[in-house]
């Protein structure tokens, strides 16, 4: 993720219900860091524009709300981060699939057994919280993305470890 940001990439986040609020929380962490002096990084939650979400949903079906936005707004250098507490959200799955086709780095925060999303080759990085309680899954997700945010900055400040062959 740090490598993508380093090259000018942007982060797109998405999820349904409670996970939509996590998507927005992640975006604000990156855009407006809580630690003074940290760089603002470009991040946008695809759940925030209610005109787009309801518009795409009504015209193209709810399953396309994230994929559509990625198709027309994202580029190959960007990052897609989808959140699905049971790994079975169709729109999140389709968002990740589209992102992968476009060449984005794909990250998934999942729960339960990881569902379809963990099984398909959709996410470059999948974090699966092995609990069937969506509340417990969310609580672990919050810590996970707080740590992810912090680690992105750690690596951004270490250009020496950002070379692609090192990251791989």
């Amino acid at each position, binding site marked *: 993720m740090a490598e993508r940001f380093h090259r000018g990439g942007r982060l797109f986040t998405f999820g349904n219900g409670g996970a939509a609020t996590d998507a927005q929380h992640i975006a604000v962490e990156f855009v407006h860091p809580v630690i003074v002096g940290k760089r603002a990084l470009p991040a946008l939650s695809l759940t925030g524009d209610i005109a787009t979400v309801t518009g795409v949903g009504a015209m193209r079906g709810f399953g396309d709300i994230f994929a559509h936005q990625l198709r027309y707004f994202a580029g190959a250098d960007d990052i897609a981060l989808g959140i699905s507490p049971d790994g079975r959200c169709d729109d999140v799955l389709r968002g990740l699939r589209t992102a992968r086709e476009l060449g984005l780095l794909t990250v998934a925060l999942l729960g339960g057994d990881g569902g379809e999303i963990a099984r398909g080759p959709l996410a470059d990085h999948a974090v699966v919280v092995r609990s069937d309680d969506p*509340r417990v899954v969310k609580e672990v997700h919050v810590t996970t993305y707080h740590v992810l945010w912090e680690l992105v900055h750690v690596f951004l400040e270490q250009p020496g470890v950002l070379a692609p062959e090192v990251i791989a």
Partner: protein
Amino acid sequence: MSEMQQLYPFLYSGSSDLEAVMAEVRSSTVEKANEIVALRQSVLAADEQRLVACAAEMAEAFRGGGRLFTFGNGGSSTDAQDVAALFLNPGGDARPLPALALTTDVAVVTALSNDIGFEVVFARQLGAFGRRGDIALGLSTSGNSANLIRAFEEAMKRGMLTVGLAGHTGGQMAELEGLDHLFVVPSSSVHRNQEAQTTLYHVLWELTQYAL
């Protein structure tokens, strides 16, 4: 030294040896995971009975036809929305309850901010919607957000049940006279605070469902 330097002293020593960096971030991540578990345990030890009492009063308010209004800024605004979504549309066999986050209508939020000031964005909405018997639930990591303080003052004036989630020392929220319930997460880390608050409101929701 910045907070990031304190957390990752190695990274500022000038070396870029990947293995050492990875070892450092691995141990700091484990430390954070342990920290949040310990924090949740200390919140439970301190607030268990108060959580049960708060949920009983929230259930009573819902039983009387009350509605829940939630609010917060930044990351806490997303928690406010999560709380409202959880009460209104919990899924499974849980009972849906009337709840609204005061952070989501951007026309209202920008109109109030532009015309009057950001400190009234929640208070004015409670002025319009709030009735005796409703519930006002606000989340802040510092406890010092001016718009939360104003909202709680408005809610108390209207006879609403008031519930606050704050962090660190509780800030100005801890000094508010008449706040019915205040839960303070005793950590100076904004992130650990939000994580523990997530558990706090999940528990409040579960206990409210149970009481109903």
